């Protein structure tokens, strides 16, 4: 009864933004199929057990009078049924174990020849993303949003500098932890271009709930253009409000933590803001990128993410507008 209602609920909810039942990559496809197969098989087993439970009630056999008076042949028949049931259970479990083993093998084969390597480092409550490349000048550092070429396998090197996080994009692949002192490798591949949301899946402190990440899969050409664009230094501010904002950025606490390529601001303990305006979201997927959200986040980060490491900076109205105008220009 509850199961039927819930399964109806689940069917319409398949197209969730961040759902394991809405696969967009080969690994997630394999896993979604595996999930549905397990659900189906387990439901059948459950229904059989419920029937076996309901049998004595529905068929209304006569009530027993003398507790110790047992019918040997009936008990022998019951023994045979139980042994068969246990045998079936064992066979099913062995089957499921082998199924998992083979699923594991196909998953491992997906990303074996990944050309692109991205180093994702977990911080308390944001993701540092660093594109590795043979020529040092093409190495790119950005944050929270990972652009990848669609249709090609990508190798993610996962580690952490503080606590244990877990990188998980449900519609692309299973999750993998980022552990300080360990380097984990996760191969992912997105079949079609699109934006796939994910979230930290291992409890990592105050703002574990607001530590989202995005994989943005793009055709190869668009991806290369994006990469080259990100390598350029920050755009110079145009308009005097933006210039005032740039000047303020260097005079206020922003400069202590953040880096903007091409300006004296070089802090590496917080997300790189060189191309902040080109990102779709702010504060690790918590707010969508807009002028209003940018102003709200700078004015009161502790209201939006209480406990986050971004302090409340004392800015009056026009100082705030100046900085927002400057940051909006950093496409």
């Amino acid at each position: 009864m509850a199961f039927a209602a819930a399964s109806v609920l689940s069917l319409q909810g398949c197209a969730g933004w961040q759902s394991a039942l809405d696969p967009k990559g080969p690994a997630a496809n394999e896993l979604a199929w595996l999930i549905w197969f397990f659900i189906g098989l387990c439901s059948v087993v459950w229904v059989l057990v419920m029937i076996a439970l309901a049998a004595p009630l529905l068929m209304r056999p006569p009530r027993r009078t003398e507790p110790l008076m047992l019918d040997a042949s009936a008990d022998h028949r019951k023994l045979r049924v139980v042994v068969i049931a246990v045998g079936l259970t064992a066979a099913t479990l062995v089957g499921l174990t082998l199924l998992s083993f083979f699923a594991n093998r196909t998953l491992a084969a997906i990303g074996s020849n990944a050309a692109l390597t991205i180093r994702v480092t977990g911080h308390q409550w944001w993701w540092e993303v660093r594109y590795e490349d043979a020529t040092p000048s093409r190495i790119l550092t950005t944050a929270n949003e990972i652009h990848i070429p669609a249709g090609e396998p990508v190798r993610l090197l996962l580690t952490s500098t503080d606590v244990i996080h877990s990188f998980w994009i449900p519609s692309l692949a299973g999750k993998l932890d980022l552990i300080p002192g360990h380097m984990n490798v996760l191969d992912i591949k997105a079949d079609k271009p699109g934006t796939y949301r994910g979230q930290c899946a291992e409890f990592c402190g105050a703002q574990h709930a607001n530590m989202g990440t995005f994989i943005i899969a793009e055709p190869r050409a668009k991806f290369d253009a994006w990469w080259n664009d990100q390598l350029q230094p920050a755009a110079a501010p145009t308009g005097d409000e933006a210039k005032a904002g740039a000047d303020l950025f260097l005079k206020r606490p922003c400069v202590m933590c953040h880096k903007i390529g091409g300006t004296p601001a070089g802090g590496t303990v917080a997300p790189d803001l060189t191309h902040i305006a080109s990102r779709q979201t702010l504060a690790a997927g918590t707010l969508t990128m807009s002028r209003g959200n940018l102003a709200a986040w700078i004015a009161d980060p502790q209201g939006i993410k209480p406990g986050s490491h971004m302090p409340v900076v004392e800015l009056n109205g026009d100082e705030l507008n100046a900085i927002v105008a400057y940051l909006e220009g950093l496409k």
Partner: protein
Amino acid sequence: MRLGFATLLSVTLALAACQREERDTRPQSSLGSGGQPTPVTTLEPGGQRPSPSNNKAASFEANAFHLSEGKRLFGWFNCSGCHANGGGGMGPALMDQKWIYGSSMESIHATIRDGRPNGMPSFRNKIPDDQIWELAAFVRSLSGNAPSSAAPQRNDDMMPHPSENRMPDAATLGKSP
């Protein structure tokens, strides 16, 4: 008798623990009030700076959360660049009992905010006021002046010196860990 003992214990715990464990991430001064007093002179003789004595220092110096934040900021803002890990380098040592400009929270806060001659930069607008209080609290714990139950414990890194909660008080050097 056990009940009396339990309530007495919890009351004493309440005073120490509540103060040590509270995690208020919002600064006391609201947006734009800019309550930082403007210094009259840049030079001051060793000792107390005549700043208005507000109780902000009290709510920072024995609070474990603020002390641990202070330790993080000490690393993030590269204070170790000049002070090393407290042993001193280009800047003076912070773990010993010698204080050139006074060891009270207000003095250290003023040092960070207004800078000092011979190289200490002024972080006036560069570090929010609350974070300066956190840094001041941590600097005091480097020489064992913070209560050991609130002082930061060891880092998950290479260990330059015993963690602040096990530092002997530099002045007396007698206190056991």
